[in-house]
């Protein structure tokens, strides 16, 4: 008996499926939501470029999503994507990478891309750990947690990355978890179909290299926790920082219209080309 074929296999490199993510890993769910989102808004994957860095979640677009892909150095996918978008603004450029990539080593590129409001969609898969390298502390690891490089306990507070991106000036920012898949996919659709810098922080699970250190052995354990800890942004607004200490604020954090970087750059170029022409006509 031949096996049934999922319709979304059209959007992935089917010949290398099943993917290599561990059982219960959130990366597969993000890939699922992402392909659903692309299908849902009718994006032509031939007009997409997916950029990623180094880490488990960078494998979501590279090699699994079937489009032009740029699998870059650790921390730099947003900078690479900037070069692509500036020269081909007609293409939908999406960055999918992890918290280590986007908020750790590459944090500076993130805040500057948000400040410029360049039309990129950045989907940061936040599993709160350096998973691929074996479970070292990340800037997103909660305080108190034992990791391989904080064997006694982590003394640093975790980075609230989405809040940072709001402050840096992005057009659209949201935070969801791999449990909240329906709003996540809708949010991805919004991010990819609007102009300007869009950022979604996706709280995700790493049962292998994070979960087993904090007593969450399986993907299910994580999703239960995401479900329990999640609080809608509108409800969270009236709460104190202490009350929100151990919660995950989910929902749309910002949605504003601002001048887009590449559009503005193109205006400058068009003006300068015209000025040079005018100069020539004056001489003639």
């Amino acid at each position, binding site marked *: 008996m031949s096996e049934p074929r999922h319709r979304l296999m059209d959007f992935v490199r089917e010949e290398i499926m099943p993917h290599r993510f561990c059982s219960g890993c959130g990366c597969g769910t993000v890939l699922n939501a992402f392909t659903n989102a692309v299908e849902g808004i009718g994006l032509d994957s031939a007009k997409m470029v997916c950029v990623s860095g180094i880490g488990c979640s960078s494998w979501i677009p590279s090699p699994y999503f079937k489009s032009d892909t740029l699998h870059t150095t650790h921390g730099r996918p947003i900078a690479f994507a900037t070069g692509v978008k500036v020269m081909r603004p007609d293409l939908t450029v999406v960055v999918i990478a992890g918290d280590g990539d986007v908020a750790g080593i590459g944090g500076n590129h993130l805040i500057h891309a948000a400040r410029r409001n360049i039309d990129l969609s950045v989907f940061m898969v936040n599993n709160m750990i350096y998973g691929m390298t074996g479970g070292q502390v990340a800037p997103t690891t909660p305080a108190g947690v034992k990791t391989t490089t904080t064997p006694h306990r982590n003394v640093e507070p975790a980075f609230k990355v989405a809040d940072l991106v709001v402050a840096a000036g992005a057009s659209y920012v949201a935070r969801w978890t791999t449990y909240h898949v329906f709003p996540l996919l809708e949010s991805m659709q919004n991010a990819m179909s609007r102009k300007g810098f869009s950022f979604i922080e996706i709280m995700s699970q790493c049962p292998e290299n994070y979960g087993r250190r904090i007593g969450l052995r399986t993907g*299910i354990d994580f999703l239960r926790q995401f479900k329990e800890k999640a609080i809608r942004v509108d409800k969270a607004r009236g709460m104190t920082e202490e009350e929100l200490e151990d919660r995950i604020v989910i929902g749309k954090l910002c949605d504003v219209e601002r001048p887009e970087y590449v559009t503005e750059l193109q205006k400058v170029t068009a003006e300068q080309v015209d000025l040079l022409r005018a100069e020539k006509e004056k001489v003639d």
Partner: protein
Amino acid sequence: MYASLLERHRRGCKLIEITENLCKGCEICIEFCPLKVFEKSDKLNRKGYYLPVVTDEDQCVGCRLCELLCPEFAIIITNE
């Protein structure tokens, strides 16, 4: 959302398919199906993962949560 689910339910005719060789036995579908349509089976796939089994397809309202939560593209829900 519930209204639309009920609407789907009224339309009936769901088909749940599991691509056995994609499944990695994470059991997320079993745990999070709102109507508990799945159950763990004692059947292993080629990779040695215990597969979920559909116990009561009629219970399914076709909400597709399992299809979307599945990290493996291993569940296909067809709503007629």
